[in-house]
């Protein structure tokens, strides 16, 4: 099997690099995480944390980071173009993206475009598989992605500069500074990414990627202030601005471009009273897009939504073992655009959460949420999970939950086509996870089943001419298994880190074919996905290799075998050397798509062949 051969080949190749020791010494610091509930109520689910050392080795888009390091499959319409996840066989709008505890999926589309989220503005990115609607609301069906900015209250002044330059004039820059004392803490991160993205197609052709250029700029600020020993104020802010031209699929096609401008602001006041912790959050989220169907014309279509939300979270620790949270939130948004009249939506919800550890080996959590809105019914949600440690190297996790996805602005309000009578998509799911772990090794194997009904689809309506409109049509049953592995062997001065993930995914909906209802795999959900990463450190050298295998996937609802997207194997290697003594000054080199794989993640959406970049990463 070619997959294995390539894996072995690259492993060997990698070992020839002179590599270096991992010098990071983890100090115990008081870290204030932005989303405490994530850890508190996810113990019975599969959670993977990607810290900044992983983030820095990857390309700066969320698509690329998650593609190479998690079980999530991406339907990426060419490098840097629109990108939608499929997490556990679900659709793009069934994965929630959570920025410092706040859901930021687009109100228009219900999904986040994973190529409009940069990774380097965050201290860590957490991937939580499975349902999370009780805590995170709409779309947390397949799983949720958490973008976290953490604060430290201790004297610190530090700077990080990352700069890389690669093929096709691809530039990536990030500057981050932290200024902190025991009273306040400030973190500012500024990123810029751009590329001409005009690669020549691999293989025997002169064709180039045309009209694929893009840029994006973002700034993320996190500020914390300790008013006194019981009160803390925190503020989070992000601006994101991007323009992408959409790559052509036909050489003489019409050139289009798309602009995004997003703002996110969150203010939080935390107070401690004995066993109570009170958190008041106020947030404002703005999203807007402009679409230019012809770059030669100044005319565009657009949409804009502004969301204000207020959230109150009261935590009560009954004792060390029993913890409760009650959360109420109210969310109001206003939207308008070229095809959406001024519309408003108001959503309220109330949740109760319980976490209990009857013993050192056993804990469980249970939670409920009632959603109230005038737009789409009032779903009642729940989640129950438990974890039991059988031996010092084995534990079992079980979780079951009901989750939902609300209809989007476009579904409800699109001029002439929107359908105000839609119901939310609802999902009932259960999973069981087995975890084996030792000091430097862990593997988790999770099996799940997810039944989703009232799936929202745009379908042509009978008798309406060329009219399409959304309906609650399909049912989906998704089931599968995931394996996540981490191993950190150390042989003398040689430090290895080996990570791997594998997902087997069946996700089917019933299709009426020749008068018969037959279950067919959803489009762009491959049965198999595999990722691997090896990093090797020796003294001041470090090197790493990443591997991605996506199995073939159907592109039509009836699963036409002739139009599948082919499976592909892609590998990246990198090596860097740290010139610093006390500080870290790294100079590195990367080769992406090492064996020049010719692949299209989506029909006719070509990805680049082998390409290179050099980078510096300075910490001072």
């Amino acid at each position, binding site marked *: 099997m070619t997959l294995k051969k390539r894996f072995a080949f690259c492993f060997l190749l990698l070992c020839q690099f002179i590599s270096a020791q991992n010098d990071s010494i983890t100090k115990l610091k008081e870290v204030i995480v932005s989303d405490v509930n994530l850890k508190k109520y996810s113990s019975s689910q599969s959670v993977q944390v990607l810290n900044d050392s992983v983030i820095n080795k990857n390309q700066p888009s969320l698509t690329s980071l998650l593609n190479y390091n998690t079980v999530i499959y991406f339907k990426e319409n060419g490098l840097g173009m629109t990108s939608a996840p499929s997490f556990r066989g679900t659709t793009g709008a069934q994965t929630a993206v959570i920025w410092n505890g706040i859901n930021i999926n687009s109100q*228009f589309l219900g999904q986040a475009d994973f190529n409009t989220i940069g990774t380097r503005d965050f201290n860590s990115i957490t991937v939580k598989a499975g349902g999370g609607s009780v805590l995170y609301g709409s779309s947390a069906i397949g799983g949720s992605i958490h973008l976290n900015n953490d604060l430290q209250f201790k004297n610190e002044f530090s700077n990080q500069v990352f700069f890389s330059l690669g093929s096709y004039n691809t530039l990536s820059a990030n500057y981050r500074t932290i200024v902190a004392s025991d009273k306040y803490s400030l973190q500012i991160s500024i990123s810029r990414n751009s590329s001409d993205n005009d690669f020549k197609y691999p293989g025997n052709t002169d064709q180039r990627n045309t009209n694929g250029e893009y840029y994006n700029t973002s700034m993320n600020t996190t500020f914390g202030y300790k008013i006194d020993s019981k009160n803390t104020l925190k503020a989070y802010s992000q601006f994101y601005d991007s323009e992408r031209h959409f790559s052509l699929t*036909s050489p003489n096609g*019409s050139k289009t471009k798309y602009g995004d401008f997003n703002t996110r602001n969150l203010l939080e006041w935390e107070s401690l009273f004995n066993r109570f912790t009170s958190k008041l959050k106020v947030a404002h989220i703005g999203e807007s897009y402009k679409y230019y*169907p012809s770059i030669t014309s100044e005319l565009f279509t657009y949409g804009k939504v502004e969301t204000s939300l207020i959230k109150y979270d009261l935590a009560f620790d009954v004792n060390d073992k029993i913890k409760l949270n009650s959360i109420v939130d109210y969310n109001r948004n206003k939207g308008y655009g070229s095809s959406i009249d001024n519309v408003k939506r108001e959503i309220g919800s109330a949740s109760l959460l319980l976490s209990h550890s009857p013993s050192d080996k056993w804990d469980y959590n249970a939670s409920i949420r009632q959603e109230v809105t005038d737009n789409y019914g009032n779903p009642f949600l729940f989640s129950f999970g438990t974890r039991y440690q059988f031996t010092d190297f084995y534990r079992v996790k079980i979780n079951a939950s009901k989750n939902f996805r609300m209809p989007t602005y476009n579904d409800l309000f699109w001029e*002439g086509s929107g359908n105000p009578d839609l119901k939310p998509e609802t999902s009932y799911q259960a999973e069981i996870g087995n975890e084996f772990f030792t000091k430097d090794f862990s593997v988790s194997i999770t099996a799940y089943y997810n039944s989703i009904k009232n799936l929202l689809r*745009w379908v042509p309506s009978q008798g309406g001419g060329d009219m399409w409109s959304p309906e609650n049509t399909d049912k989906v049953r998704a089931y599968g298994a995931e394996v996540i592995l981490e191993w950190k062997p150390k042989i003398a001065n040689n430090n290895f880190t080996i990570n791997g993930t594998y997902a087997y995914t069946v996700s089917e909906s019933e299709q009426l074919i020749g008068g018969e209802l037959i279950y067919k795999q959803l489009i762009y959900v491959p049965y198999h996905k595999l990722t691997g990463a090896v990093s090797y450190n020796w003294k001041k050298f470090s090197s790493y290799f990443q591997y991605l295998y996506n199995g073939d996937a159907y592109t039509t609802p009836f699963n036409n075998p002739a139009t599948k997207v082919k499976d592909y194997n892609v590998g990246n290697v990198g090596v860097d050397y740290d010139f610093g003594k006390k500080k870290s000054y790294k100079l590195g080199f990367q080769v992406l798509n090492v064996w020049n794989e010719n692949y299209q993640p989506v*029909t006719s959406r070509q990805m680049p062949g082998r390409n290179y970049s050099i980078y510096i990463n300075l910490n001072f």
Partner: protein
Amino acid sequence: MKRFNKLFLTVLVSSAFFVSCSNDDDNTQEARGDYDGGLFIVNEGNFQTPNGAISYLSDDLQIENDVFSLVNPGKVTGDTPICIVFNGDLAYIVVNASNKIEVVNRYTFKSITTITTNLNNPRFIAFANGKGYITNWGDPLVTTDDYVAVLDLATNTISSSLISVVEGPEKIIENDGKLYVAHKGGYGQGNSLTVINSASNAVVTNFVVGDVPSGLVKDNGTLYVLCDGRPSYAAPETAGKIVKVNLSNNTIASTLAFPDLTHPGFMDINNNKIYYTVDSNVYTTSTTSTALPTAEIFKAAKVSTLYGFAVKNDNIYIADAGNYQDPGKVYIYSLTGTLTSELGVGILPNGFYFNN
């Protein structure tokens, strides 16, 4: 974006059937190529994906899909072919989103050339005076840049002087040296007909025929214009109608109105009978009748998305786009509605083009 494209597609979907194939010049002789006789089916493929294709159905009902790529290795039909129209020994495939016209020999399907200049969202083509006339929508949001391009058939080049017309020129048909352009509306909804003189390449007249004129068929000195009516998403919604235009003086002779807010799909004329569709139902009426029938001839029950329609030689041809993503189907019925053949074709089959 995805949602946008879907809507975009809905606007773009063309109603298509062949409008000006006639002039049988067959004296039985040796086949002039593998594709002499029979008919072609244009499959649009998915919008923004170059997977459109031309299928060929021989007289003995053998189907061959994607003939352009088969005969011309290394070439693809492209993104959203809209029509294939014959002139002399040549066939012209207008490929909308690829902004090109593939010129091939109509009997061998060998590529002659590819035309890419001065095309911007090309739709349909007709011929007069040694020239080809191609309707173009121009940029999607610009309502004033629509035009008819003029192709010199001797050199296969498109003149840079474009004939400016009102928004959304769609079907085009030739009669007596004049070109009749139906303004279906492009990205909006049109309601008029433009007449162009091929001797001067100037617009002779433009007049209102009815909302969303999608089909043009000429028969016996009369131009039949099928108007869909304004759809529900573009208020005020209106019912469709069939408008008869007298070709000798370019005036409306009479109108056949559809009841309530009915939106017809397609129309063809065969042996002095108008055939048309509403949803999956097929109706017929005499070209001389003054009202539309209330009952259909039959319902094409197997068809889920009727996307192309033609009537020829005692057969009714129906193209089914299915779910718009999987390969579509073609059904052949007798004139009374008996299903005689069912064939698998490409993605989004939109029309039938008889090669004789």
